[in-house]
């Protein structure tokens, strides 16, 4: 799947994954502490470090903290290139303690399902009405519970963007504004953005998601017809900025065989 097709000149220059990586990188501000997570966000962290956020610090739940980006593509956060020249290697609680203190600015997650209030399910899915057991939380529930901002990346389909998740693995805004506080979750924590293959969703004061930007070549109608509830659309709806050459160069250098960023 290649985006930018409609605009001709940019056809096949970047993939949807590239666009999502760069959108994710933009969620990282310079100097922030970032719970990096898996897959595309591992690349997004490096892009951010090497472009606009050189002072960002990456935290990994296996016990690794880095203030320089890993030099090679990571398949998992515990791969040797993520340990070499790390700023810190320790145990899980030494990293999770910083998360629980509220010192982590942003955490990245994937999900099988996200709902209109940003709740995530990675425990139970379904296919043809049959339940499918998914791998589970890992550190996702911890990140969603405790980081100041949570950013979710997933494919945009009606099966994945649902009105209400079947199982809350990782809490978003529950049933709306005030729910997190009512559950006892820390103040100044919660969902910030959902970056999909079609656009970027953000959350209003009511705790509900709205469409903040569409990716180049994607129409609002496409987004709405692929969303499992009546998605609100921002009055100042934007088009997600295309990846620039500098960001694409970092992605190509890191993932030369396009293992994570092909489609």
């Amino acid at each position, binding site marked *: 799947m290649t985006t930018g097709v409609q605009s001709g000149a940019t056809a096949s220059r970047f993939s949807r994954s590239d666009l999502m990586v760069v959108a994710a990188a933009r969620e990282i501000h310079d100097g922030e502490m970032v719970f990096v997570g898996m897959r595309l966000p591992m690349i997004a962290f490096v892009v951010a470090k090497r472009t606009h956020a050189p002072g960002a610090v990456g935290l990994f739940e*296996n016990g690794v903290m880095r203030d320089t980006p890993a030099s090679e593509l990571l398949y998992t956060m*515990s791969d040797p290139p*993520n340990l070499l020249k790390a700023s810190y290697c320790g145990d899980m*609680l030494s990293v999770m303690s910083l998360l629980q203190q509220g010192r982590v600015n942003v955490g990245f997650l994937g999900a099988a399902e996200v709902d209109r209030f940003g709740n995530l399910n990675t425990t139970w899915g379904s296919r043809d009405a049959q339940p499918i057991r998914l*791998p*589970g939380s890992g550190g996702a529930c911890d990140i969603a519970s*405790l980081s100041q901002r949570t950013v979710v990346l997933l494919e945009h389909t009606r099966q994945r963007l649902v009105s209400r998740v079947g199982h*809350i*693995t990782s809490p978003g805004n529950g049933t709306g504004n005030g729910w997190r506080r009512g559950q*006892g979750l820390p103040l100044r924590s919660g969902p910030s953005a959902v970056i999909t293959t079609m656009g970027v969703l953000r959350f209003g004061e009511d705790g509900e998601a709205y469409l903040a930007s569409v990716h180049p070549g994607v129409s609002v109608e496409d987004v709405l017809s692929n969303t499992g509830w009546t998605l609100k659309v921002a009055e100042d709806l934007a088009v997600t900025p295309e990846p620039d050459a500098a960001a694409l160069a970092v992605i190509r250098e890191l993932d030369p065989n396009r293992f994570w960023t092909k489609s």
Partner: protein
Amino acid sequence: MMGITSSKLISMQQAIAEHVPSGSMVLLGAQLEAMIPFAAGHEIIRQGRRDLTLVGPISDMLFDQMIGAGCVSRVMAAWVGNVSAGMGYCFRRAVERSIPRAIETVDHTNLTIALALHAAAMGVPFMPTYTTLGSDLLKRNANLCEFHSPVNEERLVAVRALRPDVAVVQVQRADASGNAHLWGNLGVAIDGARASRKVIVVAEEIVAPEVIASDPNRTLIPGFLVTAVVHEPCGAHPSSVIGYYGRDHAFFHEYHDQTRELDGFERWSNRWIAEVPSRAAYLQQLGEPRAGNLRVREHAFSAPVDFGF
């Protein structure tokens, strides 16, 4: 050499035979995606253990293999699958269709598994946390109990202590008494070893006690906690052991592709577990070119520290 120490060095076969009986609660994969004791897991499968409770944060595809082999009646983990490839098909077959047997899943998060082991390591019944508040994990896991803080107005979750019967911990090097040096990401290895009734250390290298004693800050598992020491080079393949070998990414993806169906898993398991009686035989089957490609290409030694006075 000082002190009275006796060698705890035994074979993997003996360590599993003596210390991992059926019905045990076993901690494996404490260092997440790195240093997963696959050789130990495969020996557990070969010895036909049943009704194990597996404990770990993720354990990558080792838990999937042990579930597929029918060794497991319960999993207490944050995540079960194949980290770089996706889902674990044996886990799915067991949970969805009771193949080869039904298993109970007790869903944790990485932090709650870490706190459960930390509580046991600290000798207290629980540790408090905010994580899982509002989630369905809290509702469905009886080891997570909401309570009102006795010192302020907050609601918290008590994570019940978890005390495995045995922890199997992969390390870089140990002496024969079990004093172990490990480095890289540590995950829940330190608390896991302290929390467990028995500890099996699986080491890439056995070194003289003087080597271990030269850097006590790196002795993350003291030998007096260790029940048995197994010398098993390449015992964590296909996961990585930093300083010794990298991760065999393709091996994880091949397993994923080949085990979508039950008969595929059985073929894989026969080839890589049942028909290879030892890790040495496994490595022979893996072949030197593949093993060689994973070895350290460029050493990166840390600067020595000075314990002189």
